[in-house]
C-alpha cells in the first residue's frame, strides 16, 4: 500500500524560474494492481512517479510505503529502499551501451554483492523467461526496440522488487510491440507485483489489463483540478 499525502514538488525553489511540477497530490495506491498515470506532457506524472519510486524527494508532503515514511529519508537510505523495492523501466530503455545484455541485467545487483554464480543464473533465468536467452551475450546497442525493452524489464526485475515503475514504456514501440508489452506487465501483476505506469498512450490506459487510471493535470489530480 502506497500512501501519498499532499505531495508537492518544486524545481529551482527560491529562484525566478521556480516550477511547481506537482502541486499537492493525495492518493492511495493498492498493491498487486496495474495503475496507469495519464495526462498531457508537463502534467507532472513523471515527477510524481519518480517521487513514488524514491528517485527524488518531495518538497513537502509525505509518501509512505506499507506504513514506512519514505519522503524524508536521506538519499543514502532512499537508495537502499529503492533498490530492494522498486524496479524501473524507462522511456528510452536506458541500457548502458558497450555492455552485454546479461551485464546490463546484472547491474542493479552489483551494490548488493550477491554470489556471482547465483546472480548470473538469476539473470539468465529472467532472460529466458522473457525469451531473450539467445541475446544474452550480445551488446545492447545491437538490440531492436522491443528486445531492448524486454532487457530493461529483466534488469528491473533482477533484485525481485515488489513494485515495477514504467515511464512511457510504449513511447518507442510500434503498436504490436506495445500490446505485447502491456501483456507482459499484466503477467507481472499475476506474479504478485504492483505495476505503476506513466503513459499518455491510449493503447496503454484503455487496455483491459489496467486496474486503475489516475489522470493528472497541471500537477494535480484531474478530479481535484
Amino acid at each position, binding site marked *: 500500500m502506497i500512501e501519498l499525502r499532499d505531495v508537492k514538488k518544486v524545481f529551482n525553489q527560491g529562484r525566478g524560474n521556480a516550477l511547481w511540477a506537482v502541486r499537492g497530490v493525495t492518493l492511495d495506491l493498492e498493491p498487486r494492481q496495474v495503475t496507469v498515470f495519464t495526462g498531457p506532457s508537463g502534467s507532472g506524472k*513523471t515527477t510524481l*512517479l*519518480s517521487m513514488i519510486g524514491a*528517485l*527524488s524527494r518531495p518538497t513537502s508532503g509525505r509518501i509512505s510505503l506499507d506504513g514506512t515514511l519514505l519522503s524524508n529519508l536521506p*538519499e*543514502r537510505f532512499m*537508495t*537502499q529502499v*529503492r*533498490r530492494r523495492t522498486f524496479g*524501473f523501466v*524507462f*522511456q528510452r530503455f*536506458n*541500457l*548502458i*551501451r*558497450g*555492455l552485454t545484455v546479461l*551485464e546490463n541485467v546484472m*547491474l*542493479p545487483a*552489483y*551494490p*548488493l*554483492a*550477491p*554470489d*556471482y554464480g547465483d546472480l548470473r543464473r538469476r539473470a539468465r533465468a529472467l532472460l529466458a523467461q522473457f525469451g531473450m536467452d539467445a541475446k544474452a551475450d550480445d551488446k545492447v546497442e545491437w538490440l531492436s526496440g522491443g528486445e531492448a525493452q524486454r532487457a530493461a524489464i529483466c*534488469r*528491473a526485475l533482477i*533484485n525481485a522488487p515488489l513494485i515495477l515503475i514504467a*515511464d512511457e514504456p510504449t513511447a518507442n514501440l510500434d503498436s504490436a510491440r506495445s500490446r505485447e508489452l502491456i501483456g507482459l506487465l499484466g503477467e507481472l501483476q499475476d506474479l504478485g507485483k504492483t505495476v505503476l505506469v506513466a503513459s499518455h498512450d491510449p493503447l496503454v490506459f484503455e487496455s483491459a489489463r489496467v486496474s486503475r487510471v489516475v489522470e493528472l493535470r497541471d500537477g494535480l489530480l484531474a478530479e481535484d483540478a
Partner: protein
Amino acid sequence: MRQFLRRQRYLIDYSLSALARRPGKHLALLLVYTLVVFLLASVMLFTQSLRREAALVLAQSPEIILQRQIAGRHDLMPAEYLDRIGRIRGVSAKYGRLWGYFYDPAVRANYTLMVPPPGSPAHGEPAPGDIVIGAGIARTRGLEVGDYLSLRSARGEPFAFRVAALLPHSTELVSTDLMLLGADDFRRFFAFPADRFTDIVLQVRNPREVRKVAEKLSLALPDTRPILREEILRTYDAVFGWRQGLVFVLMGGMVLAFVIFAWDRAAGLSGEERREIGILKSIGWETGDVLRMKFWEGAILSLTAFFLGYLLAYAHVFYLSAALFEPVLKGWAVLYPDFRPIPFVDGIQVATLFFFTVFPYTVATIVPIWRTAVTDPDAVMR
C-alpha cells in the same frame, strides 16, 4: 567482510568495462601518467644508485685531508707543515700528496694528474717518463699500453709520457680522468716548487679520535682546513639528495601539468558518461557505490601507470645505463665515465615516488569524482 570484498569485485568489473569503453580518453591519460612516473622513477633510481655507490666506495677515502688556504683560496702546502704537525696521538701515518688538474686542449678535457701515495699497493709510483691512465683518457685519446702521450708542460716544452698501464675499466667511476705519474715528473711538468705539496693526508686508526685530531690540527695550523672522511660522505649524501630534490622540484611543474590534465579528464565528463551515472543511480546504485567505482577507476589507472613507469625506469637505468640522462649529466665534461649503475632500491624511494605521482592524482580527482557521483538519480527520467 565477504560481502565487502564481493562488492569491490563487482565495482572493479564495472570500472574496467567503463575504462575499456572509452579507450582513447583513458589511454592518453595512462600514457601521460606513465611518462611522469617513468621520469621521476628514473631520476630517483639513478641518483639513489650513485648515492649508495659513493657511500660504499668513498668509505675508503683518507680519514683527514689537510688543505692550506690563503685569503680564502686553496694554496700549496709547505712540506715543513708535516714537521710542524708533530706527533699527534692516534695518527698512524701522515704524508704530503701531489695532485692537480691539466687541461688538454687537444680533446678539451680536464685530466686529474696524481702521484700515487707512498707504499700504494696496486700501482706503485710509475717509473720516470711512465704514466698510468684511466680508461676515459685512453678512450678519448685513443691510447693503448706502450703508446706515447705528448703534453705541453707549464714551461711550454712538450713532454712525452709512455703509457705503462691502464687503470681497470671497472673502476672508471672513480678513475676515468686519472693520470698517475712519478713525483719528479709531476714537479717538472707543472714546475711545482720542490718544498710544497698539494695537501696532506693523515691516517687515523680509531674513528673516534678523528674529530679530536682535526681540532688539534686547526689549533696548531690556523691557516689550514681539515676535511674529514665523514664530511666527504655526508657531502655526497647531501649532494645527491639535493640533486634528486632539485630535479623533483623542476619536474614539479610537470607533475602539476599532469594533475591539471587529470582534473580536467575527471571533470570533463561527456553527456554519455553523465547519463550512465544517472542510470546507475536510478537502478539502485548509491552515491557511495558510484564514488567507490570511480575511485577503482583511478586506482586501476594509477596502478597500471605506476607499475609500467617504475618497471620501464628500472630497465632504463639499470639495463640501458640511464641513456636518456647521459647528455644532461655529462654537462660539458668530455671524459664521462662509462659505468653501469648498480641497483640499490629501497622502500622509501618507492614510497616517495608514490607520493609524488599517485597522491596528487588522487587528490586532484576527488572533487570532480564527487560531482559526478551526486548526479540526480531521477535525471534519466527527465
